[in-house]
């Protein structure tokens, strides 16, 4: 079966969506990602959608779900690379993805994830000290 590859980079998981996804493929990604977050104890997930020419309500819901599920597994999700036309269309469609963190590109997204984990570590240290 066709699958979207998930790359591991230290504590982070990296997903680049490059195909026009069928609904089934989107659901499979949701399942694969949550499984890998748990198994690899990942602290962050970066989803790059810069190649996507369209995000409809189904794909939007999948992204919102991944973000919520990751949060419950103690991982932060950052969505990067959304095209301006996609952002305009999503908001008009009525889907503004509340609770989903975004960054303009992969580099900024990684920086955001690193800061988040650093903050979390500092809090833990404060708490213990």
């Amino acid at each position, binding site marked *: 079966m066709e699958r979207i590859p998930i790359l591991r980079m230290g504590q982070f998981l990296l997903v680049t969506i490059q195909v*026009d996804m069928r*609904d*089934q493929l989107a659901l499979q990604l949701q399942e694969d990602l949550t499984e890998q977050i748990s198994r690899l104890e990942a602290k962050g997930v970066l989803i790059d959608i810069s190649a996507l*020419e*369209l995000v409809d309500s*189904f794909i939007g819901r999948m992204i919102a779900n991944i973000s919520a599920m990751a949060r419950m597994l103690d991982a932060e999700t950052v969505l990067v690379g959304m095209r301006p*036309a996609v952002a305009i269309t999503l908001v*008009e469609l009525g889907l503004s993805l509340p609770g989903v963190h975004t960054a303009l590109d992969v580099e900024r997204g990684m920086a955001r994830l690193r800061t988040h984990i650093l903050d979390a570590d500092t809090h833990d240290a404060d708490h213990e000290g």
Partner: protein
Amino acid sequence: MPITKADSLPIRGEPDIVMARQGVRKLTQEIGFGIVDQTKMVTAASELARNALVYGRGGEMRWEIHVEGARTGLRLHFIDQGPGIPDLKQAMTDGWTSGTGMGLGLSGAKRLVNEFAIETAEGKGTRVSVTRWK
């Protein structure tokens, strides 16, 4: 209102939603829509094709290129022979869903196009027509 070109695509399974998106993308490019207008029309098509499949148990997408004076537009009809929509007002409400979606399909698609029409009859099916002009 002359139609200069028309055809149809079947909507029988999930891959057909992707085919509908790609077909509409090509048509909007042919007409010369800008990137935002292209994206809006393709997204509307994706929502309506999925509705026809999930709620209407499949059907077809008919497309027509209309030329009206100086303007050109793309009209899409999503036609199914499914159960129809018993409460259209409710179905057009944001957030209302009878299935697995977010309930943005119909109301969301309407916001992405210039013209929107829907005909539905219980037990006979649904026909949603949308148009976007250049």
